[in-house]
Each structure stands twice: as C-alpha cells, then as structure tokens.
C-alpha cells in the first residue's frame, strides 16, 4: 500500500540522487555526497532554506545606455524600450542564473507555479518589465500560500494583459480569464455531466466569475504597489465593475458572492470568490494531482490516488493551502522513494523524462562547466547575450520544445497537461536532435544547434574527470563512478562494456592508463580529451541520463 510515512534511515547515494534531481535543477557530486549523509529531516531543511537571489535584476547588454540596460529600475515607462523580446529573455536569464546556482526547492516551485498560473511571456503579456514583476510574484509565493497567490495574480500586470481581463467590463464582459482561472488554474474541470456542466463548475459559473473579475485594470507606470507583496500591481476600478450579487451553480452549493461597488470592496469580493473556489475539495485534489505529476510521476493507480493524493489534498485544504509542507511530506515519503512496497517494477525513481531545463542545467552543474560570473559587469554581455539568449534560450530550450516561460497555449507545456503522454512529449523526433547536441555544444563552446555562435562556458571533460574520479588511470573506475553518479539506477556489465568501447575504441584498457599517464607527465591533454569527450557525449545522451 502506498505510504506517506517518511523514510527513516540516512538517505544514501541512490535516494540522494533522486531527491536532488526532483527538488532542484543543480546536480553535483558534492551535493550528492552531502545529502547521502543526511536523514530526510536534514535534507528537507536544507532544501527549504529561503534563498537570497544572486542576481536581483536582469540586464540587457545590447542597449547603449545604462538606464536602458537596467531598464527594470528605470523611471521610463516599461513600453518605452525597444527590444522587448530580448529583454524578456534577459529576465529568464536572471531567473536561471539563480536557479542554476542555488540548491533549494524554491526554484522548482516557482516554475511549478508558472505551470499552474500559466502565461506565455512572448504571446501577450505586455512589456518585459511586467514579466519581471510576474516572475517575482511567483517567486514570492513559491514556498508560500497558493490561495493568496490566486488572489494576487488577478491584479498582476502580465496576467491582466495575457488573458484580457484588463478589457473585462460590466457592460461587455470578457470571459477569457474567468474560463481559464477555473479550468486550468484552480479547481479544474471534472467529467462533462451534461450540456455545459463540467461537474466542478458550469458554463454559467464561468460567466458569473467573469462578472466578479470585471473592472480590473493595468497601471502601466507601475506606480501602484501592493501592500502585501511590495510589487507593482494593477487596480480595481469600481466604475467598470459589475457590482450585482453573483449566484453560482449547484456545483458551489448555490453560493452567493455579494457584489461590491468600491475599490476595496471589489478586492473583498474577489477574496470571497477565491475562498469559495478553494473551499471545494476538488481544488485541493487538483493541486495535489498537479504536484504529483510535477514532482513524482505522470501516471498513477487508484491505490496512489486513495493513499497519497487524497490525504495530501485534505491536508492542503485543511492547512489553508500552504504548499511547502505538502511538498515536504510528499518528497519525504516512502512512496516517493519506492520503499512502500516490495514491488520494484513500479518505480518512482527514474520514471520522469527530464525537461530541457532540467537536462541542460544538470549537465552544466554536474560537469562543473565554468559558468560565467554574471555579477561582474565585464561579463554581462557574455552571459546574457552570447551564452543565455543565443545559446540557451533561443537554441537549447526552444529547439527542444521548451519556449522558456512561453508555452504555446495557456494550458501550459504539453508535458504538464497533454495526456496520456505527459513528460514523454519532451522526447520526440522534433526535440531529440537538440537534446543530443546540448552536451556536444558545451564541449566545444559552440552552438551546434543553430548559428554556431561561440560562448566561453565550455565543458572540460579532462578537468572534470581529474577532480571527480578516484582513479582516472582506471577506465573501469572512470565509467563505473560516472555512471554511479549520473544514472538513477546501476547499469550492467554489458552497458559498461559499451561505454568502454566508446572510450577505448578497439584498444585495451591498458592503452587508457598509458594515455592518462602521458597526459599527467607532459601536460598535453589532447588525446585523453578526445576520448573523454566521446565518452561524456555517449553517457549524457544515453537513455539512462534522459530520465530522472
């Protein structure tokens, strides 16, 4: 029976690898060894430390004035700048730099919230500065309260633009935001019981919700600051708001939300409406199912639904929708670590295909790719433009099917929602070429996916092996230790032999020992580097490394 009881002993290497991959984007030998010696309580505490961002603002190196380069602090209006698309990618570059460097649940949870309250940064969220504010809002609530976020995000500028709620008026309602708020962001659809009846809510409820949401507007100069979040927000305009009482369907027990006709009253009305949605058991269940798909596995059986998801949903709701305790409980459980039953065929470990974000960030962190120090002003062009925008954002991610923070539809990335394949959508004929070329590009410091642009962050396979393998002279140890760190499960001798032939070609292991010895004595690494580059490529592109 699936168990939410926590694992009890020290984690050990296998569990440490699993937990680190599922909880963070940064994956290193150092952290694996540290976490292997933790018990689960220590591990959770370490992962739940709130982080201090390394980069607090994005930078656009392709501008000529300092004001425009650091445009989010500028006094000029957000839409007065050119290169908005480039600036939006710079915002994600800033986000990624923090996520890459910090081992904390915060970043995975921020991205999770993005998949819950989806906007597509390049498809109608307005100026880049609003997207910057939007990501900060998600970050603030990442280890916090998702019900509060549902209220705050209604006044978020990017969201107001994206789903047209800034054009939703009492006399001509626009249903777009209301529909997606119910269908995708909170309670989610149930089975279709009849004409316009989706069990959890009805078409009529969508129209009624649209009236609750009427009258909210952008404040384009960002002068209105939300008292709780300290971030710019839109405002409530009672003149455009439908102030009648709102009666909902039997799905909500016929609840009536009192209509208000003042600005602060509108916010109370919004709060009452969101409380009504979150008071439904279905909302708790929907969020826990999303958390399960995101952190654990894309499919599950009725045993898991009854013994993992249902109890966590009740706890989430009873705890007022604080997300972190639920995630901690889930990631501490015997179920999460495959320890709750003797059946070793229904693994959680290794059962999710890595997203391009996960795959790329793991390669960079694990292989100790010398990342540009983006806190140094001399490096800003290299980091933001040459490395992140041209290579990571526009090639690695985009060509692998991840339009970064900009999914094709408001439903999110196909991997999040499109059943039955879910995470399998990351690995298809359209994405595999660029997935395979990520590591090849990093080894050369050149964008092999498109454009052949160069960047300085290049993977040095020789220094990696020197620093991380106990005995680099021994080919078996090189492969064995790397596989032991890289893959969710052990590999068999046949597979090791395949990697040996990649490293050695037709030659004996003795050849390798000699070649390494020659490198150590005369310092010329060319022959070992060629062989190690091949090995790293094969081991990274292997199916075992595509999974987490």
């Amino acid at each position, binding site marked *: 029976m699936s168990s939410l009881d926590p694992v009890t002993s020290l984690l050990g290497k296998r569990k440490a690898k699993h937990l680190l991959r599922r909880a963070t984007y940064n994956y290193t030998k150092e952290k694996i060894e540290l976490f292997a010696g933790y018990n689960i309580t220590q591990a959770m505490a370490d992962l739940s430390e709130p982080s201090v961002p390394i980069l607090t603002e994005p930078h656009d190196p392709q501008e000529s004035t300092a004001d425009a380069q650091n445009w989010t602090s500028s006094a000029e209006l957000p839409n007065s700048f050119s290169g908005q698309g480039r600036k939006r990618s710079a915002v994600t570059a800033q986000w990624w730099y923090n996520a890459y460097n910090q081992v904390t649940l915060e970043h995975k949870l921020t991205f999770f919230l993005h998949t819950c309250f989806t906007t597509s940064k390049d498809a109608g969220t307005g100026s880049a500065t609003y997207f910057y504010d939007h990501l900060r809002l998600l970050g603030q609530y990442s280890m916090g309260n998702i019900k509060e976020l549902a209220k705050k995000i209604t006044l978020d500028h990017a969201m107001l633009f994206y789903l*047209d709620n800034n*054009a939703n*008026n009492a*006399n*001509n*309602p*626009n*249903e*777009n935001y209301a*529909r997606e708020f119910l*269908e995708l962001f909170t309670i989610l*659809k149930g089975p*279709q019981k*009849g*004409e316009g009846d*989706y069990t959890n809510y009805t078409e009529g409820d969508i*129209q009624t919700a649209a009236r609750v949401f009427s009258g909210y507007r952008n404040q384009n100069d960002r002068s209105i600051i939300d008292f709780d979040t300290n971030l710019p927000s839109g405002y409530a305009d009672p003149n455009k708001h439908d102030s009648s009482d709102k009666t909902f369907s039997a799905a909500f027990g016929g609840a009536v939300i009192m209509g208000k006709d003042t600005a602060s009253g509108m916010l109370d009305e919004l709060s009452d409406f969101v409380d009504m949605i979150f008071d439904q058991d279905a909302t708790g269940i929907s969020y826990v199912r999303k958390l399960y798909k995101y952190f654990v*596995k894309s*499919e599950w059986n009725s045993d898991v639904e009854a013994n993992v998801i249902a109890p966590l949903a009740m706890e989430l709701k009873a705890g007022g929708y604080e997300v972190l305790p639920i995630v901690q409980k889930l990631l501490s459980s015997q179920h999460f670590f495959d320890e709750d039953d003797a059946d*070793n*065929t*229904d*693994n959680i*470990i*290794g*059962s*999710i*295909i890595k997203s391009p974000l996960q795959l790329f960030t793991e390669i960079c962190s694990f292989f100790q790719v010398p990342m540009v120090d983006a806190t140094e002003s001399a490096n800003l062009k290299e980091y933001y433009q040459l490395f992140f925008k041209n290579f990571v954002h526009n090639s690695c991610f985009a*060509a692998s099917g991840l339009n970064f923070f900009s999914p*094709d539809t408001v439903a999110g990335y*196909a991997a999040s*929602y*499109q*059943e*039955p*394949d879910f995470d*399998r*959508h990351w*690995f*298809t*004929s*359209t994405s*595999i*070429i660029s997935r*395979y*070329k990520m590591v090849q590009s990093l080894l050369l410091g050149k964008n092999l996916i498109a454009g052949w642009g160069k960047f300085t962050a290049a993977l040095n396979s020789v220094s990696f092996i020197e620093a991380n393998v106990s005995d680099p002279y021994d080919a078996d140890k090189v492969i064995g230790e790397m596989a032991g760190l890289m893959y969710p*499960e052990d*590999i*068999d001798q*046949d*597979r090791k032999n*395949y990697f040996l032939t*990649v490293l050695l070609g037709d030659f004996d292991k003795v050849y390798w020992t000699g070649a390494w010895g020659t490198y150590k004595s005369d310092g010329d690494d060319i022959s070992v580097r060629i062989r190690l580059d091949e090995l790293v*490529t*094969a081991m990274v*592109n*292997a*199916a*075992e490394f595509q*999974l987490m």
Partner: protein
Amino acid sequence: MKRRNFIKLSATASALALMPFELEAMLKSARLTGCDYANRKLILINLAGANDGLNTVIPLNQYDLYSALRPTIKVPESGVNPYINLDSTLSSDQLVGLNPAMTGFKSLYDQGWLRLVQSVGYPSQNKSHFASTDLYMTGNDGNSLSNGSQSGWIGRFMEQHYSDELGATYPLAIQIGSLSNSLGFHGVEEHGMSMNLTNQDPSGFYSVINGLGGQPPLNIADTDFGTEMKYLVETDKLANIYAQSVSSTFNSGNNVHAYPDTDIADQLKTVARLISGGLESKVYMVKIGGFDTHNAQVETSGEAAGKHYDLLKQLSDAVGAFCADLTSLGVADDVVGLTYSEFGRKAKENGNLGTDHGEIAPMFVFGKGVEGGVSGTNPDLTEAEDSNNYQIQSVQYDYRQVFGTLLQSFMGAGNAVIDETFFDHTNTQSFSDLAMNELLKDDFEITESCQSNSITEISNDDQVGAWSVSPNPCGDTINLRCEEDVDSVLVELITSSGRTAINESYSLSNGLVLIDITYLKSGVYVLKINSETVKTERIKIVKR
C-alpha cells in the same frame, strides 16, 4: 489512466531498414490493381484557437440580424474590404459572403475545387480548447469517450487500413506546425506511426540525426524505469529510420509554384515537396494558430482588417498556392485537404472588438477530387439569445461525417474500418450510413466493392496464442511451432499486396512445421494459422 505500450517494432523495423527503398516502394504500388488508391493523401489543416466561423462565412440572408449581433466587428457589405459574394446562384438560405481575406478560397471555389460545409460540430459541445481539441482528435462526441480516450481516430484508421504498412521505413503520417505530438495519431496498439517534423530541416534531418543518440542498452529491466527507457530507445530508433525516407524523398521532391512567405505556406510547401518526392505517408497534419480572438479580432470598428483577416488571408493564400503547386507537380489527383477547428465563436461580439468561445463552425474541404459547392444552409441566427449566451448551436454535420466520408470514398476504407475509427455511440449508428455523397467528384470516389474491409487484429509478436514463429525476420524457411497438441494446420501466407501466396495444410511433428518460402521475395507477409482445435491466429513475418 494507462499509457499505451510502445510499438513492438524492433525486429521488423531493423529488418526493413535493410530492405532496398525501391523494392519496398514497388511492393506498395503493386498492391491494389484496379481500385487504385494507394497513393492518396489526406491533409488536415488545424485552425488552432477556435476560428470565428461567422466572420469567415457571412450569412447573407440574415445580414441585418448579423449586424445587430456584431455592430463593431461585422464584415461590411460595402466600402473598404467588403465580403466576397461566394456564389450568387445559390438558393437564398445558402447565400454566403466570404471574409474578404479569402480570395484564394474564392478562386478554388470558382475552379470547382472547394466545398463549404456549414454548421459542423458534435452533439455535446465542450467549450474548453483543450477538451474540444482532444475530442476532435479522439473522434468522440462529448457524451462519452467510447471511441477511445488514449487513441486518436487517425491512429485507429491507419492501424486498420494500412496494417500492411506498419513497420515500414516511412511514417504513415507526418505532423508539422506543432511541437506537441497530436493525440490524433496514437493507435490503439501502435505508437510511433507518425513523425513530427516541426522546425526540422527535412533535407538534412537524416544526416544530422543518424546515430546521434548512441547505442541503446541491450538489456532493459522490466520495470517502470525500463518502460520509459524503452520509449526513449524506440523513439530514437524510429526517428532515425523515418528520417531516412523523409530526407530522401524531400531531396528528390520539388516545388514548382511560388508560395507566400508565411509559416502555414511553408508547412504546405514542405508537404507538397514530400508528396512529389514519393513519400508514402498518407495523412499530413499542419497547423495555423492564433484564432482565439477574444479581443482585437478586427483593428477598427466596422472594418474587416485586423488579426482575424490576417490569419484567414495566410490560410487562404497558402492553400491556393498549395493546390496550384500540386497541379504543377502532377499529384493533384491524389490529394484532398480540409480545415478544422475545435469550435466556433459566439454569435454576439464581446465589446473588446472580439468574440468568446462558441460552438458550431464551417469546415472547408478542398482538392481536385472534391465536388465544389455548399453543404448545408446558413446557421439560424435567431437561435442566439440572452438565455443561451448568444450561441448558435444547431449542428448540421457531425465532424465525423466529413472525416468518415473522406476516409471511405477517397482513402478507400470500408465500413468495418470506419466503425473501428469512430462510431456514433449516442445514436448507435455507423458513420458509413451518414456519408456525405456530395463531397467528392464521381470519378474520384472509391466504390464500395473496392474499399478494404478486413479488420485485422495483427500482432507484431512472434508468439501469438499457442503459435510462435522463429526466426522473425526469417530466411527461406518459416519455423512454425505450436505449444498445444495439434496434428495439422491450414496455413495461409498473404503478401503485402493482399495476394495469397500459400494456402496449404501441413502436419506437425513434435509441435513443429517447416514452411519453405525460398521462392518468395523479401518483404512483409501475414501468416494466417487455422487449426480445428486451436484458435486461428495471425502473425506478421518478414522475409529477409
């Protein structure tokens, strides 16, 4: 919620990868003499986001009511960019204007290559993009998921109708324009029947992908981790195999006509080139997005110009160029296409120069084999009232009637195949009884006697029931074994062109019978095993 198992393709695929490309092409074209539809292709154009049907096809006999519902976004009758009168010879309840962007479609109509189908939908409308898109792809009607929730109608159709070609070196279907693989292509048994070429350079795809993923592991554990590994390994393998046929036909193919410089035109240009190069994929899906026009559907009140106009222009010009190109390339006889969208939009505008989600919408079917004209009458705008949120709702044609008619009369699928593809569970009716006879020109229709009707439960296993075949692929001898105690067996060996190569009784000794096939050519065969005491089975075999 179970995922399908991946196609058990390994043995057959690697064997076929050794088969000369030309030999295989010969096998396919020899298949059906007389009833020759082996080369036919179906093009599905997805208008993603829900196309506003009422501003695409304007009901001229209700123009006043139309204006009252859409005072700011209506397509004007006169002045700058008025609607295009499609055909003044139509009866008054069919008289329509096309959005002025659609000059390309008007030309196709005048040429007799375009049919407009009015009020297409399905019984229980779902107004969620994602749910309705899934319904369109799984072939369901909103009342149930009885036709399948994990498989798509195209997948089911291909599994049955092209069962001989499963395991070929070319994909049965090609998808362009969307990075997410469509649910429509998932089969009940088979996965990997389609290939997605979005953002890939078809010319160089094979040379780039060839071997890029390295060698797969020899031994994969029988666990969920192992299942995911198998998915990755098979996806990589299929991509490599299909890539070769795609790149080679793309490189030997051609475009003659000029295409506009838009994404949808580019997708169709690729399709035309692959078809002209001889790629044997049967179904192509392309996509143009942006139709979710909740606001700024038009730029200025009272004028047609704006977002919706631009999209329709891209669509119409691209399809126009595509059809002209097919003619120049000499392949127009073989190709029919259609547009579809997850639903229409509300009859009443929403006050942001846009429209919200709706229900029924028109479909366009185009091609040389299509009988030009209009099916159905204008939707009744008096249906749209406050009490029903201003929707037009009456369905004149279930979307599956359009698809089903094309699958039968253009692609040659018999009634039984259509029922496996989708069935009207709400009314307990076969879509073969609801065919639209006016859709195709007479000389392009496949008659019932030519339609393929065999329903095959073809397994790719070498072991089926009590019988097993080894080795598979085999050489000059098939070793057929039976686990049960059976004395004799009637064996039929059927070629991929449907011809019976062997029809003989054999006796078994020690549960084994050797079948000599030295004289047969290499290729795919179906071995049908009939015995009095043990259930009849079919096994697909490949002769090297």
